C-alpha cells in the first residue's frame, strides 16, 4: 500500500474519497479598467460583500468551534480596515490599475513583508493576507472561490493550504478529514480542525499532485499517516478505529471542563508532558491543568551550536504565556552520552546511563547551565514557571544549582533585566539514590516529580532495550512501587507537592494506588489527559 506522511495535527481516523481542491486560476489582466472612481467603487463593494460574508462565518464558527477560534476571522476584518493598506490600494487604482490588480499587488507586498520575518505568528499573518486577497479577488471576479460546502458525505479534502475562511466553511458532517501541503501544529487550519474535531494531516509534500480526485484514502490524524487504496481489512480496521475514537471521545468530552476530584472529594491535577513549545496548545486543547514536564532537549539537539539565551527565553516564555496562570514545570537540560549533541563534545561512554549526563554535566559546565537558568528566570516573569532538576542523587547537587540560580538573579538584577525571583525549584525523583534521601531532598526542594521511566530502569537495574531482560522493566514490580510510595510519603511529611511525569501516571492499574498514597499531580501525554482525569474521578 502506498503511504504518504505529514504532520498529524488533529487526531482521529477516517476512510473516504479524495477531493482535491484546485486553486481557481484567474487571469488578473482580463478585467478592463473603467475609471478610477468606478474601480474604487468596485473595490469598496467587494469589501462590503466580504465583510458581510465574514460576519456570517464568524457567527457560524462561534457556534461550531467557539469564540476564541472565530476571532481568527475577526482579525481578517481588522486587517482589511487598515487605512494604510486601503490607501495603497486606492493609490494603485489611481495610477491606472484595476481593482483586481491593485488588490493583488498590494496584498502581495504585505505577504512578502510578513513572510520574510522569521516568526511563527508573522507567518500566520502572511497566510491571513493571502486568504483576504483571494476572497476579495474572488468577489471582484464574480466567483465564490472554491466550493467546499457542497462536497458529498465521506469526502477527504486535499489542498495546498487551508486558509481560515476555507476551514470555517467545512461541513463536518460530510468532510471526514483534511490534508494540506503546508502548515504545522499551530497553524490556523490545525487549530480549527481540532476545534471542529476532524482529522488533519498537514505538511504533506506535493499532496495535491500525488493524490487524485476519487482516490480512496485511509487517514490517521495523530500519526500523520495517509494510506492509498487500502485493502478491505485495512478499511475495516480504520472504520473500527474511527468508531471507537468517537465513542471514547464522547465518553471523555464531559471530563473536559470537570474538575479532577475523586468521588470522596480529593482534588488532584492532571497536567501534560511536552517536548516543544507548540505542544502547549495541545495540552490546553485536551483540558490539561498545567504542564508537568517540559523537556528542553529539543532546543539543543539537531543543530551545530548551543542555543542563545534569547532563543531559550523565546521558547520558555512562549509556553508560559500560552499557559497563562497555569503551572509550567520546565526540566533543565537532560542530555548525555546516549543523546548525540556533537558540539557539547561529551566523549562516548561505555555506560551512558550511569555517566556524564543531565545535572552532572550542567553543574560541571556552569557557563552553559547559567544561560539556561537566566532564560528560565526571565521567562518566569511571564507566567507560572517552576524549574525541575533531573537525575539528582545528592542534596549537594541541589544546593549547587541553587547557588548558580542566586548568581543568575544577582546578574540579572545588576543588568536591570525583568525576571522573577524565588522561582520554585523542584527535584525529579528518578534514581534510587534520590528515593533513599527523599526526606532530606524534601527539606530543600519546593516540589517533587517522580520520573517513573528512568526510575523503573535504575531501581530494577535493567536496560529496557535489552530483549533478554526487558520483562523486568515493569513499574508494577514491588521494588518500584515501594520507591514511589516512599517518595510520596517523604513529600507529604515535608508538606511539598509531589507529581509524576512518567508513563505510569496514565496507567489505569496504578492510578488507584497513587491516589491512596497521596500523589497530587499526574502529568501525562496530552492525548491521555482526559482519560486520566476520568480514572481519577471514578476512584472511590
Amino acid at each position: 500500500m502506498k503511504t504518504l506522511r505529514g504532520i498529524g495535527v488533529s487526531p482521529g481516523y477516517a476512510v473516504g474519497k479524495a477531493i482535491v481542491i484546485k486553486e481557481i486560476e484567474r487571469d488578473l489582466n482580463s478585467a478592463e479598467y473603467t475609471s478610477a472612481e468606478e474601480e474604487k467603487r468596485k473595490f469598496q463593494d467587494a469589501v462590503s460583500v466580504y465583510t458581510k460574508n465574514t460576519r456570517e462565518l464568524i457567527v457560524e464558527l462561534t457556534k461550531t468551534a467557539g469564540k476564541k477560534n472565530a476571532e481568527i476571522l475577526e482579525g481578517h476584518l481588522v486587517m482589511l480596515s487598515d487605512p494604510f493598506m486601503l490607501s495603497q490600494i486606492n493609490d494603485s487604482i489611481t495610477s491606472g490599475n484595476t481593482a483586481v490588480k491593485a488588490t493583488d499587488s498590494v496584498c502581495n507586498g504585505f505577504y512578502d513583508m510578513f513572510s520574510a520575518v522569521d516568526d511563527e505568528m508573522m507567518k500566520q499573518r502572511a497566510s491571513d493576507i493571502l486568504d483576504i486577497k483571494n476572497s476579495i479577488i474572488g468577489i471582484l471576479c464574480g466567483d465564490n472561490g472554491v466550493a467546499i460546502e457542497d462536497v458529498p458525505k465521506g469526502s477527504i479534502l486535499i489542498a495546498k493550504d487551508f486558509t481560515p475562511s476555507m476551514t470555517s466553511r467545512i461541513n463536518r458532517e460530510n468532510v471526514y478529514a483534511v490534508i494540506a501541503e503546508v502548515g504545522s501544529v499551530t497553524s490556523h487550519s490545525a487549530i480549527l480542525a481540532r476545534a471542529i474535531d476532524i482529522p488533519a494531516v498537514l505538511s504533506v509534500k506535493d499532496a495535491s499532485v500525488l493524490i487524485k480526485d476519487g482516490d480512496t484514502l485511509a487517514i490517521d490524524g495523530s500519526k500523520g499517516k495517509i494510506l492509498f487504496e487500502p485493502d478491505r481489512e485495512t478499511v475495516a480496521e480504520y472504520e473500527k478505529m474511527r468508531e471507537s475514537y468517537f465513542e471514547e471521545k464522547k465518553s471523555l468530552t464531559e471530563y473536559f471542563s470537570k474538575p479532577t476530584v475523586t468521588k470522596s472529594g480529593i482534588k488532584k491535577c492532571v497536567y501534560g508532558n511536552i517536548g516543544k513549545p507548540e505542544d502547549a496548545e495541545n495540552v490546553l486543547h485536551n483540558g490539561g491543568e498545567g504542564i508537568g514536564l517540559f523537556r528542553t532537549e529539543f532546543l539543543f539537539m539537531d543543530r551545530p551550536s548551543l542555543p542563545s539565551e534569547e532563543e531559550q527565553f523565546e521558547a520558555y516564555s512562549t509556553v508560559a504565556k500560552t499557559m497563562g496562570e497555569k503551572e509550567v514545570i520546565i526540566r533543565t537540560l537532560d542530555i548525555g552520552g546516549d543523546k548525540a549533541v556533537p558540539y557539547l563534545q561529551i566523549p562516548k561512554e561505555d555506560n551512558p546511563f550511569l555517566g556524564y549526563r543531565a545535572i552532572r554535566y550542567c553543574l560541571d559546565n556552569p557557563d552553559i547551565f547559567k544561560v539556561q537558568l537566566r532564560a528560565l528566570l526571565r521567562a518566569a516573569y511571564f507566567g507560572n514557571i517552576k524549574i525541575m532538576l533531573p537525575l539528582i542523587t545528592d542534596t549537594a547537587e541541589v544546593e549547587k544549582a541553587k547557588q548558580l540560580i542566586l548568581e543568575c538573579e544577582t546578574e540579572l538584577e545588576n543588568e536591570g533585566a525583568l525576571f522573577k525571583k524565588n522561582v520554585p525549584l523542584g527535584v525529579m525523583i528518578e534514581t534510587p539514590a534520590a528515593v533513599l534521601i527523599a526526606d532530606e531532598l524534601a527539606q530543600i526542594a519546593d516540589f517533587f516529580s517522580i520520573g517513573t521511566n528512568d526510575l523503573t530502569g535504575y531501581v530494577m537495574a535493567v536496560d529496557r532495550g535489552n530483549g533478554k531482560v526487558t520483562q523486568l522493566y515493569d513499574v508494577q514490580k514491588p521494588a518500584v512501587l515501594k520507591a514511589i510510595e516512599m517518595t510520596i510519603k517523604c513529600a507529604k511529611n515535608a508538606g511539598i507537592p509531589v507529581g509524576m511525569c512518567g508513563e505510569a501516571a496514565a496507567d489505569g492499574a496504578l492510578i488507584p494506588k497513587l491516589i491512596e498514597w497521596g500523589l497530587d499531580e499526574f502529568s501525562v501525554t496530552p492525548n491521555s489527559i482526559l482519560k486520566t482525569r476520568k480514572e481519577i474521578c471514578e476512584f472511590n
Partner: protein
Amino acid sequence: MVSKETVVIDKMGLHMRPANNFISAMTKYKSDITIDFNGNKINGKSIMNIMAACIKYGSHITIICEGEDEQQMLDEAVKLIESGLE
C-alpha cells in the same frame, strides 16, 4: 510636533490584539502618529505597519505626533503603551 520615548511592556509585544487596541484609540485623533522603532518609521494608525514591524516586548520606541491635537494624542499613546495594552 511632540515626541516621547517609551518601552513596550505588553508581554506579547505589539501583535494583533494589542496593536488593534492601540490603533482604535489613535484613530480618534486628527494628528498623524509615527512610531520610531530602531530607525524605522511606522504609521501608528496602521495595524499592518505595526504588526510588520514586529515590535517585541521590551523594545524601546519613540512616539511622534504631529497635528492639531498632537499633545493629547501623544499623552494617550504613551499611557496606553505603558499600561500594557491588555
